[in-house]
């Protein structure tokens, strides 16, 4: 199970819960599992968050693998976007 930590204001969407143990093996699964646990997160995940997996920040990388012992941080997107 990966250890998933929410950074900044994202924790306000989960009633203050900042840490999760999730079985996600990719960013896509991570988003799906979080949205299932806390549906209010869905638009924020779609809007764009950055995901740091074992120290490396990824943006817009749905298929990026997550290992069973990975440490994952979700933080507001630093930059990016297509403008639409």
């Amino acid at each position: 199970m990966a250890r998933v930590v929410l950074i900044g204001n994202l924790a306000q969407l989960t009633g203050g819960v900042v840490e999760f143990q999730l079985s996600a093996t990719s960013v896509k699964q991570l988003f799906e599992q979080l949205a299932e646990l806390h549906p209010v997160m869905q638009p924020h995940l779609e809007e764009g968050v950055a995901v740091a997996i074992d120290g490396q920040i990824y943006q817009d990388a749905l298929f990026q693998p997550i290992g069973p012992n990975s440490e994952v941080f979700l933080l507001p997107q630093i930059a990016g976007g297509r403008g639409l």
Partner: protein
Amino acid sequence: MAENGTNGTNGQGYVGTRTIRPDGVDKVTGRARFGADFNLAGQLIGRVLRSPHPHARIVRIDTSKAEALPGVKAVITRDDFADQSSEFIPAGEMMMNYKDVVRNVMAREKALYEGHAVAAVAATSSAIARKALKLIDVTYEVLPHVIDVVEAMRPDAPVLHDDLFTVGVEPKPDKPSNIAKRIEITLGDIEAGFAKADVIIEREFKTAPVHQGYIEPHAALATVSEDGSTELWCTTQGHYIVRAHCARLLGLDIGKVRVTATEIGGGFGGKTVVYLEPLAIALSRKAKRPVKMVMSREEVFKSSGPTSGATVRVKMGATKDGRFVAGFAELKYQAGAFQGSPVQPGVFCAYAPYDMENVKVIGYDVVSNRPKVAAYRAPGAPISEFAVESVVDEIAKKLGLDPIELRLMNAAHEGTKAAYGPKFGPIGLEETLNSIKKTEHWNTPLRKWQGRGVASGFWFNIGGETSASLTVNEDGTVSLMAGTPDIGGLRASLAMVAADELGIPYDKVRPIIGDTGSLGFNFLTGGSRSAFSGSMAIVEAAKQIKAELCARACKLWEAKPDQVEFKDGAVRPIGSLGEKAKPMTIADFAKVAGKTGGPIGGYGRINAQGAGPSLGTHLVDLEVDPETGRVTILRYTVAQDAGKALHPAYVEGQFQGGAVQGIGWALNEEYIYGADGKLQNAGFLDYRMPVASDVPMIDAILVEVANPKHPYGVRGVGETPIIPPLGAIANAMENATGIRFTELPMSPPKVLKALREREAAAKV
């Protein structure tokens, strides 16, 4: 098939050398075409009517007299833009909301700052367009305004937006305010950290809004055909982003809009948004003729986005042996008239250079009656890191420690957990501090009224969507096409990578920047990403070419894939195949391309991940004139981790340019508003930026701690160098004068005032 090439191993070795820039001749001969240099037959001139009021309700706009003026071909107002729903999207280096963008390009219900666009005209001459603007009758209901960020946060402040309710606070407010957002990050236990501290320093700082100061004003030329096909030439850091914004604001299909990025005379983040572009298209669509628009310098200052001014409170605690045990900061950033200041990266970066267990940073995004801020080199980071670096120096003084040693003692390194969450990979802060410590500069004595300061800085850097192509021409030369505007040496850097990857001479690669119809989507030039991501895309494109050539060689030589390899610019037979086949160069394949399968090329399309942060340390010597308060920069050294400098001269240029902009931010630059809410210094005579004669030669030390996620080890370098100058200069000022300056800019009147107040206090 065996191949080599990636990591510059195949012979040419241009990467890391100082090649001649491919765009150099055009730039020095004046042949290069910038935004305002483009013209079309039959074009009209577009001009914008701007609000004279910092805050006013727009009751009525009567354009009838302007439309009746001979020579006027189109007039547009808010009625020509459909309203947009509230939707936040990441765009560039900051978040944006199309509901705000449509109101920023053309005011709707209210004018929210002096210079806010209210109407625009297209006419057969500039004089007629100007005359037409005077004939537009706008009825305003003038409202109270607010300029300062702290005043804008007060409960009784004039509210800019009735629908703006602070996000990030509980309970949710029931009244609108100018505070758009509150954000917070916490690491460890801040109170427990302060309880361990032997020394605690708390200070409040103020920074002024500063403009990017690009030499080239915004310019756009648009033509819309009868079938809606639209072409646009503009000076921008991201023509794909311009295309997306214009299509959205004007209800166009993206595929029908073709945008060409002209040569760009500076952007520094300020050309990542749209101002004139949608207006030029809307006017052209209405007039059915091309429309050209160019901002004046006054318009650039009043109507395009500077970066935030801010108020920052920092409180840091350290043990007596110099270990940082707690760091708190509260950041209040001006967003301008619409929400979306760079306070988020300011919050993340504040303590990022240091290995600390207990950190809490709170940030506020605050609107006021100023132009909407835009990105500016490492958006948000210089402000918060200035405050922290100032306090770090004070801690060093209080503990009697060397400021570099104190920073080394606390420097973030590989494995350090950043305050914003993840652990760092390999980073080079310690190396930059050690490089500075070894310089002759650090060890040279100073005289009275001279001071020396040091400060460090951190920026994330990003990757992102990138497309680039390599096409082998009939004679074996290679055309390289990138889709991110070349601001800091992109063409040279990518051409060097292509030459090394393909094993051909550098001057046989001709790089150009393609328009939006030429390549797949490219995110903009920003976030220190274009050389990082572009070189990854070029490596990918070159791989495709090498694979294709090897496949064709196998067919020609009737060989198996493992009997050929691409090495030193040619496909070579391996083993016994060498007896019957001779190596074939790229030029050899080019000659027979038609007979062996057609044109040869590669197309890299990636979403680049793995950007490595870049950290730097700056060292400055300055002298204060006690008679006038004028500060002269005597000597300046930058050390920064570039990962791998593709083109060292360009990287040094980034270090130097960032340092000079930081010097301006620290010493002179500021937006000055009158009590009437109007900008009083909207021109380069009164808005004092450093010029060449104001600064010494800036020494650059290239530190190269390879980024393991990039094939050549590259890190972005363009933004970090603007961060340390603010703190380094403030620290040098304290060493020169004994006074801790906490308000930027440290301009002569402020310095003189502080010196005289000290004199007066000493006499009492």
